[in-house]
């Protein structure tokens, strides 16, 4: 596996060992496709049973999020070959991305808190959800005035 030659690029001292087959690529493809089908199935389950309890709803959405993260890991580590790089290099990319933990948590929490505050103190916001939208036929929407 270890070869010393500089024909590739002077910056590359150890040439990666690439398996001559493409089995790993196709296996990853089937995994990604399978996960996507499961995600769709879960999404359509929520559509088919609109009256399920809030709890089940959140559990299904949570599973879809986890499945999407799994897809992301497969794409980055197999398709983008990040898993084959030197550990130090992986870390210079992975460590800054940890900022997302705070980024997502803090902002969603803030949005949720803003909703609750407005529901408590803003009577207009409270009533907003009670106004029904007139049901329109599909495709028969009113066109914006400048298009007519």
């Amino acid at each position: 596996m270890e070869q010393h030659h500089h024909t590739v690029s002077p910056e590359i001292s150890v040439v990666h060992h690439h398996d001559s087959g493409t089995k790993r690529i196709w296996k990853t493809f089937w995994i990604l496709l399978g996960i996507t089908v499961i995600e769709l199935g879960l999404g359509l389950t929520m559509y088919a049973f609109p009256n399920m309890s809030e709890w089940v709803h959140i559990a299904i959405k949570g599973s879809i999020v986890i499945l999407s993260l799994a897809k992301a890991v497969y794409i980055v580590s197999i398709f983008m070959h990040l898993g084959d790089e030197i550990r130090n290099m992986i870390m210079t990319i992975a460590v800054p991305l940890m900022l997302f933990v705070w980024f997502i948590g803090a902002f969603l929490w803030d949005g949720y808190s803003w909703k609750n505050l407005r529901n408590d103190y803003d009577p207009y916001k409270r009533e907003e959800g009670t106004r029904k939208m007139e049901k329109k036929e599909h495709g028969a929407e009113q066109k914006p005035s400048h298009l007519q």
Partner: protein
Amino acid sequence: MAQAVPIERKWWSGGKSPFNVEYGKLMMWYFLMSDAFTFGAFLISYGTIRFSSNNWPNPNHVFNAFPFLEGINLPLAFVSLMTFILIMSSVTMVLAVHEGHLMNKKGVVNWLAWTILGGLAFLGCQAWEWTHLFHEGAWWGRNPFPNADGSVSTTNFTNFFFTITGFHGFHVFSGVLINIIMLFMAMSGTFDRRGHYLMIEKAGLYWHFVDLVWVFVFLCFYLI
């Protein structure tokens, strides 16, 4: 798994790249990391607004149309096709990179051409979807879709949808352009003369990133 490196190898003593990757490829990774934050900021602001809303339109009721099958209720079917096209073009891109490692010019050209075709197919699908939604009355600043419980919705839904899928579509578009340039460079033998196909790897990284972003756009707008 991380690459096995002999323990006595001194990466930091000078004379070689401590990360064992070409400068351009390393910079492509750092660019993609920063781009991940750009998309992340978009999606998180969408999430924040959604979490601050009492109600939100149901994607199953908004995205239920399919070309040539007018009037039939097919929730999420078309976007699934788009997702499949993008995953598939990601696979053909890895295969192009793989052929590049083997210095097989014909293989690279063949798989790159398929990747470009996949990218164009995805863009075509997105153009159809935007047109369809526009004719339904949706655009920046107007939202014909009621919330899931039938109450009046805001324009937040359409504003975020068109901005974020548009930004992603622009990435796909530039990815297709990059791949076309790579195709011409490969065909003219530039990489053969250079002795390596590292440019294909860098273009591949960008292309996979576009697929990666779509995983999250698909998740945030269509699935949940």
